[in-house]
């Protein structure tokens, strides 16, 4: 079986088949981050496509100083944050309803194996994450849902590990407070 470094090297030289192998390996990560950062199916798909196409175009310049996964995580996070920030600055009242909303039908069609509580958990999560600022939202998704280490998150968000820890602690505290409020309000 070909090593990832070899696959990356071939993709870097323009081998579309090698890039397809990388896509298969990382599509779930990119999709999950894109979806949890927007909770809009179409936008998440555009975003995920944007991430992979950007990676393909930038691959010739990939020096291999960091792991390919870290490099791709960073592209994913940057694209997601840029999207959220641009949406925040150019937000229209009506547009916000399109985001942070779990389409039940689409969700079940995409995830037929999902367990009974998954849809409800996703709905609650979407409401909570919508209230976090983009940077905190990103570290929560990367750590609590994707299970990345602090070091991996630091690489993906281009901040120090200490910053990741503090950002995560604040995000969790904020989410806990929001969850309590949500429960109280029914």
């Amino acid at each position, binding site marked *: 079986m070909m090593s990832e470094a070899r696959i990356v090297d071939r993709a870097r030289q323009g081998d579309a088949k090698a890039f397809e192998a990388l896509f298969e390996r990382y599509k779930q990560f990119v*999709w999950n981050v894109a979806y949890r950062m927007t909770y809009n199916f179409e936008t998440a798909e555009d975003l995920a496509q944007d991430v992979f196409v950007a990676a393909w175009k930038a691959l010739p310049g990939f020096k291999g100083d960091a792991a390919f996964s870290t490099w791709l995580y960073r592209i994913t996070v940057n694209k997601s944050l840029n999207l959220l920030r641009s949406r925040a600055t150019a937000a229209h009242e009506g547009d916000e309803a399109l985001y942070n909303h779990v389409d039940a039908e689409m969700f079940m069609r995409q995830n037929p194996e999902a367990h009974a509580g998954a849809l409800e958990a996703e709905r609650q999560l979407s409401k909570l994450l919508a209230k976090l600022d983009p940077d905190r939202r990103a570290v929560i998704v990367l750590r609590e849902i994707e299970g990345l280490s602090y070091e991996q998150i630091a690489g993906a968000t281009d901040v120090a590990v200490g910053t990741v820890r503090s950002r995560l602690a604040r995000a969790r505290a904020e989410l806990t407070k929001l969850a309590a409020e949500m429960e109280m309000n029914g």
Partner: protein
Amino acid sequence: MKLDDLFDKAQRLEAPGSLKERVMNQVVKDAAPAGIPPLAGRLERFFLSWRVAVPLAAAAALVLAVQFAGRPAGEVKTARQAAQQQPAAESPSQANMGEFIYETLGPVYEFASGQAAAFDDEPDDISQFVSKQLKEIYWLNGDNNA
């Protein structure tokens, strides 16, 4: 619901099948990205990679070691020793020097005499020619016009 329960229940979602189609269509369209490195670039990377560089350096060191192993230090000559063993350079003789001066200065003298003759319609020698030129310069710039 507690936060940790929420995270536990949230599961990793499957990427839609249409995503692959969209990405790969774009990739194929852009194929041959800026990226295919030229042959020189590939060769450079190949030779710079440590996997190749280290054995190459080891091989070069081995060749040098073999080359000098059979030669005791006494046989290695310094530049001065090598120069001393060269045959002595030819020293100029008096006759050669005279011939050299005659060949080098002779044409100058003949040329100057020729110029003087051309002006005065009479044979002249170099001292008369130069003296005449100096007098003319003196006359034009100093004496009579001062």
